[in-house]
C-alpha cells in the first residue's frame, strides 16, 4: 500500500492496533459474503449494510453509500468483488471533508496568525481536557510556545486536571478559581499569551450537553470576549466527539456548529472497539474536517487524521 507513506511507521502501528477489531469484523464479514462470487449481489450489499451500521455509520449515510455503490454497479455493468473494495473506499472517502489549508492540522506547520487560538468544545466526558494535553505536547514538541486556558470552571477538579497536564507537558496554564466566569479566564489567557508572544493558545471549556441552551450561549460569550484581545480568535473551534457515541453525535455537531462555528473535529477513544463511523455522515453534512484522533491516554496518543489512512484502517 503506497498510502502507508502518509504515516510514519510507529503511527500506523498504533492506528492499526486501535482499529484492529474493526479490521477483523469489516472485511472478514464482507469477504465471507463475497467468497466464490464474481459480482456484487444483494447478499454482499446486505453484508455491507451490516458492517457500516455496526460501525455507527448510521442508517441514512449507510443507505447513501449503498445507493451510490449500486449506481456504480449499474453503470459499470459488471463490478467484481475486487473492485468493490476500491469503489467502497472511494465512496466513503468522498464523504470525509478535506482539511482546510488555512488551518493546517500538522503540528509543525506554520500557523496563519499568532497567537493561534483554539477553543475546544464538546459534551461531557468526551475527552476534551486529555485532547488538549496531548495537543499541547505536540505543538510544544514542534517548537511552538503554548498557553492553556482553564475555562472549564464548572466540573469538579477540571482546573486541576488541566494544570496536571500543563505540568506534564511543561506549558503554562492560566486559571482562576472554580466557578469563575469562563469568559474571563479565556480573556486572561489570551492577554497573557499575547504579552508573552505565545504561538498557540488552547482554551478548555466545560462539557455541556448540546440541548442546554444557556450553556451553549455561554460559548458565544467566550468567543466574543476573546475577540477583544485577539480579533481573529478563535482561529479554530475544535469539537471533540467520543468515538463510541452513536447517532447522537450528529445532533451534537449540529448544535455546536450553530453556537460556535465549529471548524474541526477530533474523535477520541478510537483505541477501543468502537469504530467512530458516525463521523462519516457528520463530516459530509456539516463540511467539517476531522483533524485529530485520540488513541489512548498517553501523551503521544493523538494523531493527525488522515482520511485515506482512516478508511484503509476501517475497511482493510
Amino acid at each position, binding site marked *: 500500500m503506497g498510502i502507508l507513506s502518509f504515516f510514519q511507521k510507529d503511527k500506523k502501528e498504533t492506528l492499526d492496533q486501535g482499529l484492529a477489531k474493526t479490521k477483523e469484523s469489516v472485511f472478514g464479514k464482507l469477504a465471507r459474503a463475497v467468497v466464490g462470487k464474481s459480482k456484487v449481489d444483494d447478499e454482499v450489499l446486505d453484508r455491507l449494510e451490516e458492517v457500516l451500521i455496526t460501525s455507527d455509520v448510521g442508517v441514512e449515510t449507510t443507505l447513501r453509500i449503498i445507493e451510490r455503490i449500486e449506481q456504480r454497479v449499474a453503470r459499470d455493468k459488471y463490478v467484481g468483488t475486487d473492485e468493490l473494495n476500491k469503489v467502497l473506499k472511494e465512496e466513503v472517502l468522498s464523504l470525509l471533508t478535506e482539511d482546510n489549508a488555512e488551518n493546517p492540522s500538522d503540528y509543525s506547520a506554520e500557523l496563519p496568525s499568532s497567537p493561534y487560538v483554539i477553543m475546544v468544545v464538546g459534551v461531557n466526558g468526551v475527552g476534551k481536557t486529555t485532547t488538549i494535553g496531548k495537543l499541547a505536547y505536540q505543538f510544544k514538541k514542534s517548537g511552538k510556545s503554548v498557553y492553556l486556558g482553564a475555562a472549564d470552571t464548572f466540573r469538579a477538579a477540571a482546573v486541576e486536571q488541566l494544570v496536571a497536564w500543563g505540568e506534564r507537558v511543561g506549558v503554562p496554564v492560566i486559571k482562576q478559581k*472554580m466557578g469563575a466566569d469562563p469568559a474571563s479566564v479565556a480573556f486572561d489567557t489570551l492577554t497573557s499569551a499575547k504579552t508573552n508572544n505565545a504561538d498557540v493558545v488552547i482554551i478548555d471549556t466545560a462539557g455541556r450537553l448540546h440541548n442546554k441552551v444557556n450553556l451553549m450561549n455561554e460559548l458565544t460569550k467566550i468567543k466574543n470576549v476573546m475577540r477583544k484581545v485577539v480579533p481573529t480568535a478563535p482561529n479554530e473551534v475544535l469539537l471533540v466527539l467520543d468515538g463510541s457515541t452513536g447517532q447522537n453525535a450528529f445532533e451534537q455537531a449540529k448544535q455546536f456548529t450553530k453556537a460556535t462555528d465549529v471548524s474541526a473535529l477530533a474523535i477520541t477513544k478510537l483505541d477501543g472497539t468502537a469504530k467512530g463511523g458516525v463521523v462519516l455522515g457528520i463530516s459530509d453534512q456539516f463540511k467539517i474536517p476531522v483533524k485529530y484522533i485520540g488513541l489512548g491516554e498517553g501523551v503521544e496518543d493523538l494523531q493527525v487524521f488522515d482520511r485515506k489512512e482512516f478508511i484503509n484502517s476501517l475497511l482493510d
Partner: protein
Amino acid sequence: MFENLSERLERSFKILKGQGTITEINVAETLKDVRKALLDADVNYKVAKTFTDDVKAKALGMNVLNAIKPNELMVKIVHDELARLMGGTHEDINLKGSPAVILMSGLQGSGKTTFSGKLANMLKHKRGKNPLLVACDVYRPAAIDQLKVVGEQINVPVYSEPDSKNPIKIAENAIKQAKRNGHDLVIIDTAGRLAIDEQMMAEIAAIKDAVKPQEILFVVDAMTGQDAVNTAKEFNERLNFDGVVLTKLDGDTRGGAALSIRTVVDKPIKFIGTGEKMEAIDLFHPERMADRILGMGDIVSLVERAQEQYDEEEARKISKKIAKNQFDFNDFMSQIQQIKKMGNIKDLASMIPGVGKMMKNVDLDDNSFVGVESIIQSMTPAERANPQLINGSRKNRIAKGCGRSVPEINRLLKQFSDMQKMMRAMQNQSNPLRMMRKKQSRR
C-alpha cells in the same frame, strides 16, 4: 432530526387500510420502519433484528381493532415489547453487609465519579446511610481531586491515598477505614477503562476479588452507539456486574444502548443520571425509555385518556351552542373540567410528540385554571349565561367574591370574547377539542 416511529408507520400502514388483520405481507414494510427507528436510536444491529422478528411473531394474526388505527396498534405492540424487555421487576440495590460495598465500573468519561457522588448522596438522605467514597482512579490527572470536590459538595468523606498507585490496596485500606469510622456503606470509584485493555480489566477484577462488593454497577453513557454491546459483554464477563447505570439522559439521545445492553447481558438497569447536579439521579423507568427510543411522546396513553374522558354528548351540545353563537361561561367551565379530568396539563402536553421538550422549562401546572375557575364561580348564573351583563359594579362584586383584581377579570372577559369570535369563525369546523382529536387520529 429523526422522524418518530408513529410518523413513519403512518406511511407504511397505508397498505394495511381495509384489511382486518396484520399479515405477513402487510407487516413487512412496517417492520422495516421499526427497525430503522431502532437503528437511528443506536440499538445494536443484531438486537434490532431479533427484536423486529419477535414483534412480527406477536403482531401476525392480530385483529386490527376498529377503535384504534392499525398503526397505533403496531406502535403499541412495539412499545410494550420494548418496555417489557428493558423492564421486569425492579431490583433494588443490595445494601446488606457491614459495610456494604458498591464498586463502580465503566469506560472513560461515562460519568462514574459524578454518579458515585449522586448515589452516595441519595443513599445518605433516603436510606439514612453513612457512606464513604473511595478514590481508586490513580491514573487520570486530578481524578482524586474531582471525587474530593464531589465529596465536599454532598458532605461525604472521601478516602484516598494520593501517593499510592495501587488501587487494590487503596480499596482494601478504605474498607478498614470504613469499619474503624463506622461507615455502613463504601462506594468505590474506579478509573475508566476500555474493555480490551487486558491489564486494566485484570486490575478491576482484582479489586472485586479483594473487597467482595455487594453490588457492582456498570456505568454507561446513554449516547453510546453500536459498541455498547461489546463493552457491556466484556465487563460482564469479567465482573458479572449486578446492575447498569445509564448516564447523561438529560441530553436528547434516544438511548437505544439501554435495550442493547439489557438484551446482551440481561442485567437490570437500576439508575439513570439526568444532569450534573448531585440530585440528578433517578430510578429507571422502562416505559419512558421505550417512548424515548421510539422518539415519541406517549401518544398511546394520551389517546386512551382522551377517549376515556371525553364525553361525546357534551361535545355535541357545545358544538351546537357555538354554531348558534351561544357559547357561554357555563360551557367554558365544563370544557375546563373535561381537560382537567385528563390529568396534569404539563403531563398531557409532554405526551404530545415534539411538545414535551418545548414544555420542559415552561411553568405550567393544574393551577393554571384555578384563577379562571374562581372568577367564573363568583359570577351569578345569569352572568355566566350572558357575559354581556357584566358591568363595572358587577366586576367589583366578582372581584370581591373570588379575591382577584378587576384587571384580572377584565383580562378573562377579553380572552373570552376573543375566544367567542374565534369559535364563530370556525363554526363550520366543529369544536376545538374535536378538531384536536381529529388531528390526533390523522397522525
